[in-house]
């Protein structure tokens, strides 16, 4: 069993009057991909945002490499090696692709070797290097968003629905890129609704409902146990398969 990189225990998050996370317990093992599944509104995105410090947990502990990061400010959490790819892509549309990438490389100039690896993963990054990021297509923005998160080696990458609203061909290249990223021993916590994609890339899985984790274990087990799938996710994920 690999070491735990990130752990959440009994995390509650309130957003205004709403009690969104109601005691989330989640272990993300080091190396490999953990997929967070669940229907809309289950609290997946809130979980990622709480880890990142964008919402503050009202209760519970979040540990990252043996340090409690629950109350840290977002920039501090980011500096500890967690990158976040938000659902809305989170790129700076007023800036060029190059500027977006340079901003993310906060430890100095971009490493040329790593950049050429990234432009191989996502060719549009190289093609539109000098263009304004606002002019990119949806798929290209998503690629930029992921590329930005990996411009420097990170210990953990949180990715929120990278395939949402993308054309099938682009979903495939995104999946391939994430698989290649996985090969570099980067730990990924992935929120995904597309079960086909999620099962092809995930090592471990956690399923959320109503602000709690209702199942966690090996991805392989879940893939083989269709009855469990049925029970956990009902029809919401079936339609995507």
């Amino acid at each position, binding site marked *: 069993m690999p070491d735990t990189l990130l752990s959440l225990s009994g995390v509650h998050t309130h957003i205004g009057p709403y009690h969104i996370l109601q005691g989330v317990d989640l272990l993300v093992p080091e190396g490999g991909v953990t997929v967070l599944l669940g229907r809309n509104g289950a609290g997946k995105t809130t979980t990622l945002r709480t880890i990142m410090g964008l919402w503050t947990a009202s209760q519970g502990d979040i540990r990252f490499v043996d340090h409690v990061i629950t109350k840290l400010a977002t920039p501090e959490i980011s500096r500890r090696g967690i990158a976040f790819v938000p659902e809305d892509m989170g790129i*700076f549309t007023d800036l060029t692709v190059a*500027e977006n990438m340079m901003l993310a490389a906060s430890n100095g100039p971009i490493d040329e070797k790593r950049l050429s690896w990234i432009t191989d993963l996502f060719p549009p990054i190289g093609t539109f290097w000098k263009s304004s990021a606002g002019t990119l297509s949806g798929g290209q923005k998503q690629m930029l968003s992921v590329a930005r998160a990996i411009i420097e080696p990170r210990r953990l990458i949180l990715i929120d629905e990278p395939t949402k609203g993308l054309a099938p061909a682009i979903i495939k290249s995104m999946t391939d890129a994430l698989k290649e990223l996985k090969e570099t021993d980067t730990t990924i916590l992935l929120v995904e609704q597309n079960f086909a994609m999620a099962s092809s890339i995930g090592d471990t899985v956690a399923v959320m409902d109503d602000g709690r984790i209702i199942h966690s274990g090996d991805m392989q087990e879940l893939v083989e146990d269709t009855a469990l799938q049925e029970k956990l996710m009902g029809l919401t994920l079936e339609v995507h398969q």
Partner: protein
Amino acid sequence: MLTKLLSGDTPRSSLLTVILLIVLVCLAFAPFLFPGTKSLETAARICIFIVLVASYDLLLGYAGIVSFAHTMFFGIGAYGTALALSATGPSYVSLAWGTLAGAVLAAVFALAIGLFSLRVKAIFFAMVTLAVASAFAVLVSQMSWLTGGEDGLNYKIPRELTPAFKLVEEKVLDVRINGKLLAYYLVFFASAFLFLVMLRIVNSPFGRTLKAVRDNAFRAEAIGYRVVWYRTTATVLSAVMAALAGSLLAVWLRYTGPATTLSMEIMIDILLMVVIGGMGTLYGAVLGATLFILAQTYLQNLMGIASEATSAVPFLSTLVAPERWLLWLGVLFVLSVYFFPSGIVGRLRAGRA
């Protein structure tokens, strides 16, 4: 070399380059091209306002922060220099420490305002700056034992910068080479230098982060930037630049008073110059300041001529009567904002094929 001097931020439009070069040449040779006191006054004012407007653009255009305290910092610089010169006599030493003291005080004020209020929403920051600036203006007009109140301060500057000092006895190209000319070139080169420094700032990694913060502060935080720190630093830098522009004005006018530095009217003028020139590009400050001050200074004369030329036409001549110049200035602004919503520079850059 030239690109390096401009920090790699070229005008990126041939028409814009030509216009900027014309402005540069006109300002550099203003005493020889446009002889006369009024035109030299106008040229110096343009130089100083280019720095002032560019420093405001650093805040508004690059960092996306709306502040109404910019004239306060401008005033702090001007009063710093003015007080030092009137208290310790017209020496270069007092000029230097007065300028330095003004800049430092402006930085401290900006830091305090920034740390206290940049955490809150943009509208509150704007309100706080408005309140602080109004309080400061009242304070300056009340503390007349120190600041001369509404009358302001008259003082002497080092003799080499006054018209009484003659460098060469004969006129060169029909222009007296005297201290006033030296003072003009002091203003010109200092402004050019400060402008290039600001160009360097906005094109550095710091400037890039500022733009990211303006674009989306949450995203900037999520990739590891302390937004409050960047906003506060931008406020401080812009305040120091405004204070230095104020010092230049103090030296040039040999007078400092609330009307020339602290008034709300100047604040609104600065805002207009930034918007007309184009936000988020320092070249916009050059065009905005130049056009605005030229219009402010010469529109009245121009209308006088127009009014005489049309004196035969009853309605038209009343319409363009010189005393209605403010109306026409207003019309010009409305038109320019309507036709160039992204400013003149934005329009020129978009227009390049």
